[in-house]
């Protein structure tokens, strides 16, 4: 029990620091980075909470979170990169 509590507190502290970066973050990319990092920490938070409550079934939600987190980050970045809405790909020369 103590183990899960210690992990939970550490995750909460890390989440607070990530939140600070999201609030300060001079560029938009800093904020996106903070969202992505916060998502990973939320996955850990959910997993540790499930163990603390003695119900590891919460892991399904944590797994789905990891998926949503990745897809959301890539989608947001795709938005920053595209020159205007509606065009959905860039050519081979861009690499």
């Amino acid at each position: 029990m103590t183990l899960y509590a210690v992990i939970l507190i550490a995750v909460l502290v890390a989440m607070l620091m990530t939140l600070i970066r999201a609030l300060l973050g001079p560029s938009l990319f800093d904020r996106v980075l903070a969202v992505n990092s916060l998502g990973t920490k939320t996955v850990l938070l959910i997993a540790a909470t499930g163990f603390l409550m003695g119900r590891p079934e919460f892991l399904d939600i944590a797994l789905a979170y990891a998926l949503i987190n990745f897809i959301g980050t890539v989608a947001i970045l795709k938005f920053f990169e595209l020159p205007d809405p509606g065009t959905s790909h860039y050519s081979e020369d861009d690499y």
Partner: protein
Amino acid sequence: MTDFLLAVVSWPLAIVGIVFLVSGAVGLVRLPDLYTRLHSASVTDTGATLVLGFVLILQALVVFGSFMAAIKLLMIVVFTLLTAPTASHVLAKTALLTGQVPVDGQGKPLLESSEAATRLARSRVDATDAEDA
């Protein structure tokens, strides 16, 4: 006996994981520019998830006796190990492409302009090769 062994294995691993977690978060707040912060965030994303995931897998197997929970945790860890570096790479490349210039410890820019950053992002060579040429 099992409890003791489990504690001996779990606690040091958990502390290592927490060190990864908190040091990555401290770096996220304190490091000077986006690219260095990206590096410290990926310490949390991969290192902490890997180690803490391993601790939780051990706990799931020994304390809860739930094989399914261990498999789900393993899936989470593997998935995070695949996606976190990809997300970091996409983030760094997009930032470079839109002209974010990396800086060194003193806040001096490492590239002369944001156009140079965009050019670097579009080229296949890395920075040192570009300087040599």
